[in-house]
């Protein structure tokens, strides 16, 4: 594997880093727990309904986010390195990545009571895309993006551990992918509330963001593929956990989500990262890779009876969904390119 990154010479080498401080290990665990908790929560709602706010999956998600928020605040206060990346605020030196994590975790915890209030007012919510849920998912996506940025910058603040932090940033990139794919959980569980063409749009286009980010940052060869593999393993762990809580504890989990197949799209992203194709063409190729990969997985899962639900991408859904998917994929690849260039600017 090739390691491409170089450290800026202006940074003072200091012993403190956010892994040693305990922030990054807890963040890795907390964001993964949140990811597991949200799917478990949806399975709970389908299998058991919404009985109270303090259900086991809710407790799991909000405890994880509370720990992430507390650790973020601790890291913001404790980290006093005077690097060019840190934002100066009085005596504080705020790490931009940690700041994003803290904002995301705070937003999530702030909207937990708002979500409960919404439910009390309007009744049991039948949609994951209810406004309060969307705010929660946005918050968690923000936190996982912040985690990825934190790990990436730590690699440059600690040149002797660049490979380790680059690998960690790919793990957080997989979490970021996981968080924005949760927007499609209702389709994955086979109980959608919005039309099927929207599923075609998002399942084809959304992976482009994190996969292109990984393949463009490219700390190692096949970075996007590594992200897709970690994401798939996370999902397999989730399925095992849901089976366990269902069979051993009767805590929901009988209804299980379909795994999204982003492996083909990820491999295409890695393949195209070094090609001189126009960016928009790469976006189309990766989104079509995601579309084809998932379509094949749906067919295979259903024919092998691995799933209780059948995704029905009927012709009208495809006709409306695919053009929108291509437009969204092109916008997202430019966004990913901009973010990656921002993180790699000093290599120019």
């Amino acid at each position, binding site marked *: 594997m090739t390691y491409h990154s170089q450290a800026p010479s202006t940074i003072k080498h200091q012993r403190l880093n956010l892994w040693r401080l305990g922030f990054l290990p807890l963040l890795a665990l907390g964001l993964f727990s949140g990811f597991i908790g949200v799917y478990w929560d949806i399975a709970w709602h389908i299998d058991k309904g919404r009985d109270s706010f303090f259900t086991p999956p809710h407790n799991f998600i909000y405890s994880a986010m509370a720990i992430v928020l507390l650790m973020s605040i601790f890291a913001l206060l404790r980290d006093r390195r005077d690097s060019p*990346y840190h934002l100066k605020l009085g005596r504080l030196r705020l790490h931009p990545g940690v700041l994003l994590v803290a904002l995301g975790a705070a937003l999530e915890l702030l909207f937990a009571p708002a979500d409960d209030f919404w439910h009390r007012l309007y009744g049991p919510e039948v949609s994951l895309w209810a406004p309060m849920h969307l*705010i929660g998912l946005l918050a968690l996506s923000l936190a996982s993006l912040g985690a990825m940025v934190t790990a990436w910058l730590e690699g440059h603040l600690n040149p002797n551990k660049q490979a380790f932090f680059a690998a960690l940033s790919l793990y957080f990139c997989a979490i970021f992918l996981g968080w924005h794919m949760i927007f499609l959980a209702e389709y994955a569980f086979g109980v959608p*509330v919005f039309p099927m063409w*929207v599923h075609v749009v998002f399942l084809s286009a959304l992976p482009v963001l994190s996969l292109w980010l990984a393949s463009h940052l490219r700390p190692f060869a096949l970075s996007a593929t590594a992200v897709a593999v970690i994401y798939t393993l996370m999902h397999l762990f989730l399925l095992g956990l849901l089976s366990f809580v269902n069979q051993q504890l009767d805590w929901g989990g009988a209804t299980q989500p379909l795994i999204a197949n982003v492996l083909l799209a990820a491999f295409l992203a890695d393949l195209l990262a070094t090609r001189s194709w126009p960016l928009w063409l790469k976006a189309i190729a990766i989104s079509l890779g995601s579309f084809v990969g998932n379509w094949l997985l749906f067919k295979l899962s259903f024919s092998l009876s691995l799933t*209780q639900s*059948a995704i029905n991408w009927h012709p009208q859904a495809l006709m409306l969904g695919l053009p929108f998917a291509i437009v969204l994929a092109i916008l997202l690849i430019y966004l990913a390119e901009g973010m990656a*260039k921002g993180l790699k*600017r000093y290599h*120019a």
Partner: protein
Amino acid sequence: MLKFYGSLFVFLIMLLSMTIAQNLPIRQGSAVTLNILPEAQGIGIEVDEKLTQGRELTTWLRNLDTQKSFRTVLAPQDDGNYQLNYPLAEARYGFWMRYGTGIDTYSEYLRFSVTNPLSSTRFGGIFQSELRPHVPASAQPLGYAVFGFIMLLSLAITALLFGKISRVKTA
């Protein structure tokens, strides 16, 4: 960069608007009739197309004897007719259906038995709204407006922080 974020935001709002536009309150659930297809090879579903407006129907069929279930989304074949192709074994079944989007959804749950020979092939019901009756139609669009504002704010903060990081070399 600002132009880019603007176009991304407009695009996402456009997608949301299209889904919300399909979410205008109907406030009246359609009648529904199930027809067990010949040789119990599936279920034909008839609804009032004026009320369902050609929307997809989410269905969840559960074999109450074996607890095995099957979920899928059906697109209308013609005026208010849907067809679920799924071979039905001799058993008692629960069949849950839903149409509508967002918080304006309608659902119905019917139970029937498949016997050999079939004692009955038609079953009827009426979709009920899943929304509490006092909820104003503006609730969801207002909620989405709040979400849109927070999303824009988050994008702006993220862009500022990325801007700060990208300026490091020239600092």
